[in-house]
């Protein structure tokens, strides 16, 4: 595999930006994929996120770590524009969310459990769904859409299996199909909800390989997880969340015992678990 030239994007592969804790306002940084400032989200008076701020650089694999109910799903929903924040701003690639959505910048990769694998669609159909936001009302694929689907499927090595029904794929192939959809969409920010649940070690390795390619291309991958080993294994940045962003930045600096203790302290969370994906 040939690596694309490095340094095309800011933060091409390394170095990662310095760590910042929520308490210390960060110094200005070069262009970021995700910029969240003072984000507050509440559902009918129940606070889900309070004064959350974070930055994710272009070209990074960022772990989003927190307990169930800590606000990981809420943050994802906010980044996709599903919830209206009561305060704060979100910018994707420096632009407001509405523009990011028009540009198809944010892709969501669902949890394995939340997908109906018996649904009568082919692998190519699923990847084509990544293109719908760029098509006209009838969603009739144009040559460039077919081309994008082909390229995306080839990148995840599923082109030969494109006519299979989606459920006929193995666990790892299924994950790659949804990553191909995000690629076909042309997303620069990928949100992955617990991507390693029920995934074997080999599949995990293949996925991480893809994430590293995405990083080199300047995409940013935000992975929600509660598995610290994953984060230590291949993330270069981390966001610690417990109803607010406790700390974010380079992993060596943020992943301290003290920060982790605060992340997993039930006193601050105290919310019931919310299993399942984003609906």
């Amino acid at each position, binding site marked *: 595999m040939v690596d694309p030239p490095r340094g095309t994007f800011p933060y091409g592969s390394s170095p990662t930006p310095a760590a910042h804790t929520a308490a210390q306002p960060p110094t200005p940084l070069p262009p970021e994929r995700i910029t969240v400032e003072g984000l507050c989200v509440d559902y009918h008076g129940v606070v889900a996120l309070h004064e959350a701020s974070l930055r994710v650089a272009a070209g990074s694999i960022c772990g989003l770590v927190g307990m169930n109910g800590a606000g990981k799903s809420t943050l994802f929903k906010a980044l996709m524009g599903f919830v209206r924040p009561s305060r704060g701003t979100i910018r994707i690639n420096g632009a407001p969310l509405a523009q990011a959505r028009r540009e198809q910048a944010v892709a969501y990769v669902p949890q394995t459990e939340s997908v109906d694998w018996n649904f*009568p669609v082919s692998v190519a159909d699923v990847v084509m769904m990544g293109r719908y936001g760029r098509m006209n009302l009838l969603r009739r694929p144009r040559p460039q859409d077919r081309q994008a689907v082909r390229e995306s499927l080839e990148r995840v090595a599923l082109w030969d299996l494109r006519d299979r*029904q989606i459920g006929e794929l193995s666990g790892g192939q299924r994950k790659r199909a949804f990553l191909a959809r995000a690629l076909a969409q042309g997303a620069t920010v990928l949100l992955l909800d617990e991507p390693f649940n029920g995934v074997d070690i080999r599949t995990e390795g293949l996925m991480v390989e893809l994430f590293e390619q995405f990083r080199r291309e300047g995409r940013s991958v935000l992975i929600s997880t509660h598995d610290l080993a994953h984060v230590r294994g291949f993330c270069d940045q981390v966001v610690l969340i417990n109803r607010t962003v406790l700390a974010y930045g380079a992993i060596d600096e943020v992943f301290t015992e003290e920060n982790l203790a605060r992340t997993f302290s039930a006193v601050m969370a105290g919310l019931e678990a919310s299993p399942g994906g984003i609906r």
Partner: protein
Amino acid sequence: MEALLWLTEPLSHAFMVRALLVSLLVATVCGLLSCFLTLKGWALMGDAVSHAVMPGVVIAYALGLPFAVGAFVFGVGSVALIGYIKQMTRIKEDTVIGLVFTGFFALGLTLISKLRSSIDLTHILFGNVLGISTADIQQTLLISALVLAVLLVFRRDLILFCFDPTHARSIGLNTGALHYLLLAVLSLAAVAGLQTVGIILVVAMLVTPGATAYLLSDRFDRMSWIAIASAMLSSVVGIYASYWLDASTAGCIVLVQTGLFLLAFLLAPRHGLLAQRSR
């Protein structure tokens, strides 16, 4: 020769020709829609809507309005009410559905007994396709054209909405609008369906062809063709059977549908019982 006569003799009656044409049309509409409903898991919703249109039909007849108008108002109204109660209380959806549709159905039953109009309760409950009036045929034509147009134009969006609503929303599709579009179309199709088999059995038209086809195909396009074909076949065979056996038309149509489902359940090449046993 004998067999041919068996087929042609009923066609010498105008009412039989009309019944066959109307039910073929209804089969097309309901067959196609049934694919979306089975994949979305909205069978119970179909049952609810078809029962809830009853007071609308009664009121429309009493006021001399086209029955489709009344049915549509109450169909959409029931769906809106179900959504509202579910949102505002802690009651689970299936309970709300059961609650709302029986309430509406009871209202229809009471109205029909007090209004003492020319409406025949059994025609509404069990259909009257052999005695269908020209005005009713015109309405069914209009409804069918509308439903088919919506399902064809928004086919890809609706498939995506059924498969992965989160992705649909994240790329900027209006999933709220798609939700209500599908429900509105469901209300209309229920009205068309009750022409042939009546309120009680219309849910069979809205579910069984899709379920049969789902066992026979892993592609949406093929599934919809199979669903339409099986719905059409059931209507024709059912109407002929009802003619020669002098039996309930609605009963015969739905029995044939159920029979086709059982065949698929047993013999479907991949998802049938025998195929699974021999695996």
